[in-house]
């Protein structure tokens, strides 16, 4: 590194004159990124996220260990009490675990993104002429891998424990996809919280407050009918219950029911509401 002097044609090789003409640069600027630029930038950010996943495999702990652990634990602890036997409980429980996994993983998306945002490199992302959507949507796109891993492992461990889904391959595939879609849609809520909170820990805390009532006050692990009336009312409107029921219909019966439709409508609603909120809050505050 004897000299750091830059030759005249640094940067855009071969293009343009050796010296910079500011007036020409200003004339070339656009007032906002085009949709196709935003998409390309999102893909670049997703590429960054997958690189980070490969270098920090511990990011996969929650999506590998957790589904295995929960499936085994819940099956043996609650199976006998709720359904009389483990094998009878599995068809009720596996879709519940799938929904819970989607929720927990989407929460991790919010926490991790918030953590990432505190790094110096986000200063550069903010100073670059890129869509404010890309730094949020990119990592979320890469996280589809995590939802996929989590859903696959949950189903696989259920099958290993003797679960035989009645919906066949297509039904299971449908439930698997629905899990991924709902996890991804939910992640926008936690991403939005991430842009509001003061720290990653705060996101974690707030998210727990949302997550616990949503999973346990649902029909994920017990039949709604077994609950006291007031609780049953809440459980029935809880969106997690809809996802769980939709997964059961798909995986156990191979049936595309109205519940599946409602679950998808709920997912679209989440994205439509929370994605713009998250992007706006990121652009303003961060």
């Amino acid at each position, binding site marked *: 590194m004897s000299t750091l002097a830059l030759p005249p044609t*640094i*940067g855009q090789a071969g293009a343009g004159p050796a010296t910079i003409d500011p007036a020409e640069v200003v004339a070339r600027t656009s007032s906002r990124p085009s949709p196709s630029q935003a998409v390309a930038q999102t893909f670049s950010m997703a590429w960054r996220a997958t690189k980070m996943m490969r270098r920090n495999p511990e990011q996969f702990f929650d999506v590998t260990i957790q589904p295995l652990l929960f499936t085994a634990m819940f099956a043996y602890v609650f199976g006998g009490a709720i359904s009389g036997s483990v094998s009878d409980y599995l068809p009720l429980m596996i879709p519940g675990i799938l929904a819970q996994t989607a929720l927990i993983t989407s929460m991790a998306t919010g926490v991790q993104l918030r953590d990432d945002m505190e790094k110096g490199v986000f*200063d550069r992302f903010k100073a670059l*002429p890129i869509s404010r959507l890309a730094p949020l949507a990119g990592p979320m796109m890469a996280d589809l891998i995590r939802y996929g891993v989590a859903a696959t492992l949950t189903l696989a461990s259920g099958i290993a424990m003797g679960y035989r889904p009645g919906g066949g391959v297509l039904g299971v595939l449908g439930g698997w996809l629905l899990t991924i879609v709902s996890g991804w849609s939910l992640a926008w809520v936690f991403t939005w919280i991430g842009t509001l909170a003061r720290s990653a820990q705060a996101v974690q805390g707030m998210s727990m407050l949302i997550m616990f009532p949503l999973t346990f006050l649902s029909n994920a692990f017990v039949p709604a009918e077994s609950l006291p009336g007031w609780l049953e009312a809440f459980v029935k409107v809880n969106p997690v219950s809809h996802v769980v029921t939709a997964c059961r219909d798909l995986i156990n019966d191979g049936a595309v029911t109205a519940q599946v439709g409602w679950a998808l409508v709920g997912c679209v609603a989440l994205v439509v509401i929370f994605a713009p909120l998250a992007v706006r809050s990121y652009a303003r505050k961060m």
Partner: protein
Amino acid sequence: MTNAVDVTGLVKAFGDVRAVNGIDLEVRQGEIFGVLGPNGAGKTTTLRMLATLLPIDEGEARIFGVDVRREPHRVRQILGVTGQYASVDENLTAAENLRLFARLQGISRRQARTIAMELLDQFGLADAADRLVSKFSGGMRRRLDLAASMITRPPLIFLDEPTTGLDPRTRGQMWDTIRSLVVQGSTILLTTQYLDEADQLADRIAVIDHGRKVAEGTPEELKAQVGSSTLQVTLAHSDDRDLAMAVVRGVLAGEPTLSPESGRIAVPMTTADDAADVLIALRKAGVGIQAVNVDRPTLDEVFLAITGHGAEERADTAAGTGWPGGTNGDNGTNDTSGVLEVAR
């Protein structure tokens, strides 16, 4: 010709603290403009507002005529920003970082690869291209950060304290790099805590303190206010200090300053020749001298001359951080001072 930067009445308040309190700046095309001030003066806050990283509370700011508040996306296409702390990705390699930033700015995959290699080569990082940035030294990170700002050859580059924390050798290399950027036609706005650095690099300097501009001019104009160099005389007997001050006042026009705890007198001089006159006069008056030292003026002395208070006085009000520019921890100043240490 439009100015590279045109700022009037810039204000940023954090709660009760007016971090930037009505700053005007005018940076002309093709120059290196230095913003000089102690820790907590508002340098970073000013740059961050101009770089669209922080909303502007009050005031007007234009970059090559483009309004920063109304058209942030346009401004981002004109600027290269290198922050006070390297904003590169620790989890990627040096080459991956540059490729990512190039791709994000619409450069093709292939072109991005070429540019990354070229820049790494030019910034002396070719050997470390495939190493993770988390394994980089501070100086390497700074260079990578600067390289990242150069990907699209922006006509205006912001450098926030580009050499703070670097060793003297790396600092000299950074200075060369900065100068070479201007040769290519970039305009540079840099901040620094070191008068020495502003003096070496900047065509014009604005001195800021407490979020306000307290002086502006060429390095020569600023230094003329404090003399071109300072004679430091350490007295053998601190009892002599009143006599010594009187003797110095009799010889030179500039007002000497006394640091009582060390029994040291600092005398601003217009030429180094003045030193001989002062020393002879002291000898004649029978004042014993322990050490003599000729220094370039420090930022602290510039501050004293301009504001009537030293930069150190306010260091405790400013974010609690120390003040490396004024006292003796400053490599840069010591490097270039003509030291003539006379032990008795």
